[in-house]
């Protein structure tokens, strides 16, 4: 059973051109925590949402008729949060979040509801959830402890060029395709801005291979219309310290290796 509620405070996006990003409500708001006045407290994905909004804001500044925008959907399977659906909606309005609609789904119908809503990227803090939706062909990324400390003025997306940074979110060919098409749209958005002062930053990182792996991945990205801003080639150096300086909001792996395809 899936029900969708539109957020009347927010102008609905052009569904043909917008990039639909679904975020698990548990990541946006602290589950159960009361922020007073029946409003939820901010969750881990708050800076992420603000960064997505910043991109939209700047896109519209460049072109007020822009239709290539992020269309943010809040999705929940959490039965508790479903019961408090009104609180979810009122909290969203309270913080002025640019969420277009709310999707209330059961666990069984979850992946279907994502696909039905034409979701191009699903973000959650739940590892199992991300793994399941990924298997069903929805591009999914795990939000973690890094996400909360990320900047809110710039959306930082990390594309992983080789091997798998998160071994348990092993992508299928279908979601690899989804990764490429999402990233291509991201690349298009990126083109709307100049080299410096962009609200969107695309970073490439290769963890295992040497410079040729990274060079190859840069070329592959170019062929998809993606002009990476930053590139890091680790060749086996520990990722942790680098990631904590990079502070990406989320990582997308696979589909960008220049050597695989």
């Amino acid at each position, binding site marked *: 059973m899936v029900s969708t509620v539109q957020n009347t405070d927010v102008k609905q996006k052009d569904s043909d051109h917008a990039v639909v990003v679904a975020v698990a409500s548990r990541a946006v708001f602290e589950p159960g925590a009361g922020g007073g006045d029946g409003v939820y407290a901010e969750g881990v994905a708050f800076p992420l949402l603000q960064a997505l909004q910043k991109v939209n804001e700047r896109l519209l500044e460049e072109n007020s008729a822009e239709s290539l925008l992020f269309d943010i959907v809040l999705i929940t399977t959490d039965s508790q949060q479903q019961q408090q659906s009104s609180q979810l909606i009122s909290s969203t309005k309270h913080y002025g979040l640019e969420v277009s609609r709310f999707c209330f789904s059961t666990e069984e119908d979850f992946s279907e509801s994502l696909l039905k809503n034409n979701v191009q990227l699903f973000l959650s803090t739940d590892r199992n959830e991300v793994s399941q939706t990924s298997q069903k062909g929805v591009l999914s990324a795990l939000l973690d402890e890094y996400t909360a400390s990320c900047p809110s003025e710039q959306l930082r997306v990390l594309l992983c060029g080789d091997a798998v940074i998160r071994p348990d979110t092993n992508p299928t060919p279908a979601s690899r395709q989804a990764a490429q098409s999402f990233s291509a749209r991201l690349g298009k958005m990126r083109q709307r801005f100049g080299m410096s002062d962009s609200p969107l930053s695309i970073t490439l990182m290769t963890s295992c291979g040497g410079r040729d792996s990274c060079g190859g991945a840069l070329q592959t990205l170019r062929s998809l219309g993606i002009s990476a*801003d930053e590139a890091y080639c680790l060749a086996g150096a520990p990722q942790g310290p680098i990631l904590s300086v990079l502070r990406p909001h989320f990582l997308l792996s696979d589909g960008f290796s220049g050597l695989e395809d």
Partner: protein
Amino acid sequence: MSEMKPSDVAAAEDSSEEQDWNAAKTFFDSLKSNKPRPPKPRFAVSIAVSSRTLFNMVAERKIYEEEGVEKYVAFQVEHENEPLKPGPAFPFVKALMNVNSRLRELYPDSEELFDIVLMTNNHAQVGVRLINSINHYDLTIERFCMTGGKSPIGYLEAYMTNLYLSKDSDKVTEAIEAGIAAATVFMPEKESELSDTQLRVAFDGDAVLFSDESEIIVKQHGLDTFFEHEKHFENQPLAQGPLKCFLEALGKLQRKFYSKNERLNCPIRTFLVTARSAASSGARVLKTLRSWGLEIDEALFLAGAPKGPLLQKIQPHIFFDDQMFHIEGAKDLGTIAAHVPYGIGQKYHKGKLIEQPAKKE
């Protein structure tokens, strides 16, 4: 100052580090090429070089400064199949590669090697030309950070960098303040014949290997007071300076050759080139080095004579000094000189206090 890498690390960090390392090892082994695998950063001596020190990008830099970043990146992309010409740190990097070959011959399983990392705040699109240029000269640089305009300091720390070379004195100053050995490299006025079998590194003493405590005395109280002071404190080691740890790292690699009976044929040679005089103030310097357990191959006390001509004879791949006056002298005569912006020497030029303009925020 940059310490030797810590050996006590939390177990969790260790195991994910091992995972990252093993994945890369597997990848490189599967390549079945002669390409040497990059060393494990924890054990390696990491040298970070910027794009402008590795390659000559003077013309490109001009475009950046006069026409802005968009035109600059477009230019680089347009010319990305044209390899760049070597920059001031190029001979140094080649010499490091030579030391690595020698080390690999003697210790095929050791990770104690030089690890050369390209650390640039260039945009990733410029990176393609940089990678092509590295390929052209077949340099063993497998790791890089292209930060697209952001400060590289955080990444220097993440890579446990032992030495950072850049053309940007602001970044170098930031690195030194963060405790990382760093210097601003200058292109010499003329070319010179450098050894391709031995890495030769020359260091100034005060405010480079040692702290600037004695230099302060010279500047504020004059030479006579300085001589008295140094004689009096002859047996008290000087405090360490920003490049002490780099000398230490070189010494560790040198000892690997000595223990295989290669002392006479060692591919690393270090020089101390100091304005101090042997008689009055030299002893303290040598005793300090001894107290640190460090050796320096040749110590040259100039007693105030210009360093340029002597450096011309030594022909180091790089010479570190804290005073621009000496840097100018060195580069005029063909030595690759690197400025270490540390200590009281920054406030003086040729012995006179520089009028400081209001610091721009």
